[in-house]
């Protein structure tokens, strides 16, 4: 590089201080969120029809035999709570990836049809093909990737325009939802509650069989997305600027889509498309962290916290036992609308 007038040390220090300050805030938020997730996780192991003190719960988790608690906590509550965390992290991470990539908080996978595609496929495999377990997960991921590829292909003319991608996604979402409705209406005995799993998401009756594939997907794909963090931040500046900064725009976008779609599909196959979690996690995280720095980790934690708390609320706080998706849906809806109003008024990302 050419000779540059050396900056004054005071300016350099000011720049460094500002950066450190912002990073510190982000670290603090992440730490607090992590503590809250752990607390909510512990709570969901302890609370239920029978309350088990932390000591019992800990012993069960460590593999010791505790009469009563071993079954209730070990077999019923633990897989459920683990899936809540895994699904929340997956939905949060995937959602914020899409939102960052498409530069639009409303472009989350549940608005643009990826979760609903996965859900339609899972419901189809279960109702029509009588499949279960891994086969359902595989169907869901194939469908979700199919939807993503279809969307991407349809939106592609001289590069992908974010706005077109979102609108095409909305169209695909409408189709997927009607397929789900059709499949459910063909289900032998119409079980409204079971159907809700595929319409809004539910953790009821979670087993390890459903949880483990989602967990593995998170372990593999989560780091993949985290590695992309910096490139995704670059994409926020617009495709041209990102490209000028040396980011391979299309490659970054495709990798991010594959990673995020994989996470969504595995989580959706396990518990259905828990409404609004992938949509809400990013904006809530942005609110807490502030606009600087990556939102990936905070959003994942917010997602996990949302699912854990909503599941507790759905199970115990209301007269009826609501599946988690109904709770997140009802809580999320007003926030969603608030967000649209705010984004539109700012004239910003829309």
């Amino acid at each position, binding site marked *: 590089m050419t000779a540059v007038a050396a900056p004054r040390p005071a300016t350099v220090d000011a720049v460094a201080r500002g950066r450190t300050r912002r990073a510190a805030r982000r670290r603090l938020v992440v730490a607090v969120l992590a503590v809250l997730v752990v607390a909510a996780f512990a709570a969901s192991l302890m609370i239920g029809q029978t309350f088990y003190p932390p000591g019992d719960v800990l012993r069960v988790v460590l593999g010791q035999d505790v009469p009563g608690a071993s079954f209730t906590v070990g077999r019923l509550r633990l897989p459920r709570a683990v899936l809540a965390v895994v699904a929340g992290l997956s939905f949060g991470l995937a959602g914020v990836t899409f939102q960052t990539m498409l530069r639009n908080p409303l472009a989350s996978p549940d608005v643009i049809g990826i979760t609903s595609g996965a859900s339609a496929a899972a419901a189809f495999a279960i109702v029509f093909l009588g499949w279960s377990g891994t086969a359902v997960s595989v169907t869901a991921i194939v469908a979700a990737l199919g939807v993503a590829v279809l969307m991407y292909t349809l939106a592609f003319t001289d590069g992908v325009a974010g*706005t*077109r991608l979102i609108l095409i996604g909305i*169209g695909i979402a409408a189709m997927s939802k009607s397929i789900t409705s059709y499949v459910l209406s063909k289900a032998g005995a119409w079980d409204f509650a079971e159907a809700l799993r595929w319409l809004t998401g539910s953790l009821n009756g979670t087993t390890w069989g459903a949880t483990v594939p989602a967990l593995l997907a998170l372990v593999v794909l989560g780091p993949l997305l985290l590695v992309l963090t910096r490139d995704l931040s670059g994409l926020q500046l617009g495709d041209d600027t990102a490209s000028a900064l040396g980011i391979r725009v299309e490659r970054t976008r495709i990798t991010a889509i594959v990673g995020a779609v994989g996470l969504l599909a595995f989580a959706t196959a396990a518990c259905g498309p828990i409404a609004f979690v992938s949509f809400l996690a990013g904006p809530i995280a942005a609110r807490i962290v502030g606009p600087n720095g990556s939102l990936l980790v905070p959003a994942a934690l917010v997602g996990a916290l949302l699912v854990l708390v909503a599941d507790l609320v759905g199970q115990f706080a209301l007269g009826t036992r609501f599946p988690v998706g109904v709770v997140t*849906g009802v809580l999320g809806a007003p926030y969603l609308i608030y967000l649209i109003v705010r984004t*539109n008024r700012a*004239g910003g990302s829309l």
Partner: protein
Amino acid sequence: MTTAPSVPAPDAAVARRPGSVRLLWLLVVVAALVALMAASVVVGSRDVGWSDVVAALGGSSDTIGQAAATKRIPRTLLAVVVGAALGLSGAVMQGVTRNPLADPGVLGINMGASLAVVVGIAWFGLFSATAIVWTAIVGAAGAAVFVYAVGSLGRGGATPLKLALAGTATSAALVSFITAIALPRGDIAESVQSWEIGGVGGATFDAIGTVLPFLLVGFAVSLLSARSLNSLALGDELAAGLGERVVLARGTAALGSVLLCGAATAVAGPIGFVGLVVPHLCRLLVGVDHRWLLPFSAIAGGCLLTASDIVGRIVARPSELDVGIVTALIGAPFFISIVRRQKVREL
């Protein structure tokens, strides 16, 4: 967008379609409607002979065939009426918002009507058919105002993207509320489910009779607003310059459109995409003059919904596919193709 007309600019040749061509198309569409209505009575999980149809029209339901035809006649009428209402409603909505993606389904207006009805049933013990229609219309109007207000905030006004997103988000929110209300009420869950997917299967003459007055008013108001919509298509400022009272004209047209889709939803549940697809096809046939476009959209809407209903009965024999599912499967790809044709900056 307040200045440029963004509803698809047709090439000049289409805009200046001679009247004779339009009349010819009118005949074709009407003939298609008649043929589809006949088919709708005949075709189904059990095909019915013509003699049975004639007998059923005379009020007889002695044989199985006659009984089937007796059920299919109101069903067919309902499909035609609801389809016409949705097609016209969509055409008016696209004119009022100057937005090619406007549709009662896309904008979440159907779901507004659904939620209102579900709330009415679950919390206020709503039973009477007329009360349900009123509730649905109020719900539709509320959702329409809300979505349009949200979608037109900020720079650029109600762009297709903003309106569609606002509509989708609002629908999703409304569906969540519907589910949350219905779930603890096992007694009404089944009937609520029909408020999430539209269908015409349970049609009766009584039901049609209840909504007909609302629909007739809606048809009249909408069709009368054709001339104002032509001015509005040039942008608010220019329309005002042409002597149009913009707010009044918009309000009237929107009222007609909401009456139509609210009443249609009240009787058939939320049926999406008819209002989206039909006006676009009709524009290809008769151009952008609303005085032609609106009646055409009504007739073609009737055709589309009747045809979708027939398809739903054929593909899923011996059971049926709700017509709302069929229209979504037909309409969503159409929606996507419209999006693909638009230039990015117009979105």
